């Protein structure tokens, strides 16, 4: 996890999806009888694109529309995406539980409408984690994502929510 956070550049192929991609299509409930990330990754996005889990490459990027990750609170959804090797999810907006969950488990996400409009399926995309700049290498277009709120940055810097809390707990121990 640590090395992922230190990397400043993520490059991969874009997988585009539409608006309101819900957590039931990201990871259908029929697979929720386990919380094993590798197992969940095998079925990632299955009901939106049955080929996705088999073809996605490490570093690839998911591009969604509005309200990405709406529906259930299942953390299995961002876990399955992370487990599938996806480096970033870019969307116009995220559903709020998904947004929290993604930061908590260390799945990088960015809100950027211009990028959603300017990235097509299969485009080669680069994300600069430090600046939130996104570049479509296929078209040459560049986009600036909405800055990540400082509190979320703190969670990322700590290595996720659990590490953040562990640090707090240790600090307050007698």
């Amino acid at each position: 996890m640590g090395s992922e956070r230190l990397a400043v550049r993520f490059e991969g192929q874009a997988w585009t999806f539409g608006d309101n991609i819900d957590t039931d299509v990201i990871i259908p409930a029929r697979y929720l009888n386990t919380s094993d990330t590798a197992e969940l990754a095998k079925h990632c996005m299955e009901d939106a694109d049955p080929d996705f889990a088999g073809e996605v490459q490490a570093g690839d990027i998911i591009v969604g529309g509005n309200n990405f990750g709406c529906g259930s609170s299942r953390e299995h959804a961002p876990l399955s995406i992370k487990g599938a090797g996806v480096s970033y999810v870019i969307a116009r907006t995220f559903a709020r539980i998904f947004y929290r969950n993604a930061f908590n488990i260390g799945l990088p996400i960015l809100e950027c409408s211009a990028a959603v409009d300017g990235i097509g399926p299969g485009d080669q995309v680069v994300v600069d984690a430090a600046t939130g700049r996104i570049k479509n290498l296929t078209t040459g277009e560049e986009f600036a994502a909405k800055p990540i709120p400082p509190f979320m940055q703190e969670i990322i810097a700590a290595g996720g929510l659990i590490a953040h809390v562990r640090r707090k707990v240790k600090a307050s121990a007698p």
Partner: protein
Amino acid sequence: MAMTITEKILARRAGKDRVTPGELISARVDAVLGNDITAPLAIREFKKIGVKRVFDPERVILVPDHFVPNKDIKSAEQAKIMREFARAQGLTNYFEVGRMGIEHCLLPEQGLVGPGDVIIGADSHTCTYGAVGAFATGVGSTDLAAAMAQGETWFKVPESIKFVYEGERPEWVGGKDLILHTIGDIGVEGALYQAMEFTGPAIDNLSMDGRFTMANMAIEAGAKNGIVAPDERTVNYVRDRAQRPYEIFRSDPDAVYARTIVYDVSKIEPQVSFPHSPDNTRAVSAAGNVEIDQVVIGSCTNGRMEDLRLAARVLGRHNVHKNVRLIILPGTQEIYRQAMEEGLIATFIAVGAAVSTPTCGPCLGGYMGVLAKGERAVATTNRNFVGRMGHPESEVYLANPAVAAASAILGRIAHPGEVI
């Protein structure tokens, strides 16, 4: 400074005089909730934090309800992780099969959530408890783990949208129809990150069960929470159940809202949400001829006493249509018992329904009524996403219990007026 009910509750638990929308706060939680899907993951994360005990064994509530009674070996293993954790931590509010219910029916019934509470649950429909005037919202397993350890969590204070429901509800129009109509109007992201505050004379006249249904589906409009200010009806409901002291908050008359939306409910018909989105609503009369294979009456949305009474009233002496499987799931063991006492279960069985012990089961396509390819169901549940109740090419139509019962009799989406 004027505040909304949501702002007042959050300010109190954050130990502040006031909070404003957009502000990040750390707030104490009155209770936290997990189920057999989300708790195992939370327990795994909790163990990494380095504290031995949960913050309060009475306030960490675990309810196995999604895949229990265990549907397969894997789900049995998950439920076991939860059960063992509950025993090891001495949790007083772990509810075993045969003594449980669907979490969002169970917690209010048991008086575990009350007015003025801040509740988080690793389940998106935790927003249901807004019906008693609590601030309640869904989170993921990692947030649950952190709150189990600390008894607090962080929130961004949401803006509120005020919904005013005026006029008198026509017959067969209940809380489900008001909320489906609302979601159809504002869309599945119409209240993204915001609080939905339900007010007006039609809410004053709505039963607690109807209010639970409305608050339950706030998440279906993307909201952080749904809330109804407590009134006499609320107090009557919570007074004898409350396991902790509660506090009543109401919005100031001059509180600031992101917007105010007014509906005249006398113009609303029973609603149906067509596949594959809760905001794809139509009036039942405009549904056309939609033949169905299954009807599900139950869930945290419509599995309460009022819902079962309504279903029994419409079913009456009609038989379930020969092409339809009608599955009825009382929300809790207590609701099941009372439905037996009132003769509702006898009615259901007589007309040819399958009645089950409380479980989420088919609502999320878990078990007990999973749909095959191409099948269609009318359900009183809250989501009709692709694959929600089974095969990705099956379809779910959301409706109130009276419409669901009428549809079960006629084998197609039907208005209750057609059979009564």
